[in-house]
């Protein structure tokens, strides 16, 4: 008498499909994890930007007539505006305003990757016109202020 023993098991295709589904599941789970983490990071970055924006809005009423000084400067000139008004040194109003401005730039560039703060008058810096304060960071794909950017408008 001849008895044939057959061993049961999964076919190669079944194993491949199962492995594929497992990899897909793990990939989706890690994507979700990364997305949540990125959101936490973005929230932190926005908070840093909001803190600086809050400082700018606090100080602007004292210096609104000197806003054109900053608006007129190019980016490279703005980076070299530190005038040293710390440590009890008396400064003119213009120098104090530039001191504040330099402080915000330093703070933003330290805390946010490729962070920039900019002021723009629309259409001019005359009294009653709108001043746009914009803080942006990271790689900006478009000119519009969207994901890594916050902006407010302030009446001069």
């Amino acid at each position, binding site marked *: 008498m001849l008895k*044939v023993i057959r061993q049961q098991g999964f076919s190669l295709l079944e194993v491949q499909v199962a492995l594929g589904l497992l990899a897909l599941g793990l990939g989706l789970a890690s994507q979700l994890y990364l997305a949540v983490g990125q959101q936490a990071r973005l*929230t932190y970055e926005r908070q840093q930007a909001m803190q600086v924006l809050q400082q700018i809005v606090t100080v602007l009423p*004292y*210096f609104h007539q000197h806003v054109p000084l900053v608006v007129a400067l190019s980016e490279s000139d703005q980076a070299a505006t530190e005038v040293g008004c710390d440590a009890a040194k008396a400064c003119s109003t213009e120098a104090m305003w530039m001191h504040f401005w330099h402080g915000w730039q330093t703070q933003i560039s330290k805390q946010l990757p490729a962070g920039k703060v900019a002021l723009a008058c629309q259409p001019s810096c005359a009294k009653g016109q709108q001043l746009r304060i914009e803080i942006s960071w990271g790689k900006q794909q478009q000119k519009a202020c969207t994901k890594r950017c916050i902006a407010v408008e302030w009446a001069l």
Partner: protein
Amino acid sequence: MMVLSKVGGFSLLEVVLALAIATSSFIVAQQLAHGLWLRGQWWQTLAQVSARQAEAVSSLVRLHAGYCAAGLARAGEQHWQLRLDQGRGCQLIDMRYNGTKQQLQKRRAGGRYSAFLHAIVDVQVHYALALAGHCQPHRWVTRVAVDDVQRVVLLQVQVNVVVNGVGQPMAVPDDWQWQANDSEPSLQVPVKVLIPLGCQGHA
């Protein structure tokens, strides 16, 4: 009875290859998992830092929002006295930094100090003075004589908030301090708050 049993098996080469693939897959998976875990720790740290910073900023801004005319009554190093509108007229509120308890403390005049902000170090208080007859700040000082205190137009409080029990940071900004020596690692993160005090008693 004759039993014909076909038992399949792997060759030595196949077994070695399978083991090599399994080992390398395991190592790659372990590295990925470790990287994800580190990132998770970092994001959790950022969330904790955000919460501590927001707490410090909002507490200070909220407290000073209700100042009365001539907001400051005294302005010393790491301590100041505010006139706050408490609904029944202006009350004097003392603020001071207690270094041993790492607290910014507050009290009503004559009362006992209680904690206002916990777990903070390196408190620096600066006052922006305006020239007599002007409102624009022209000088930063760390203390002001009582006669000149009405010329203070801005109060700047800078503190380092301490965030305990955080994981190793991945990319620490320049002004953060990571301390891993203690039994509980901690991170010190600066927070700066500017508080306007109006422009009182000037032309």
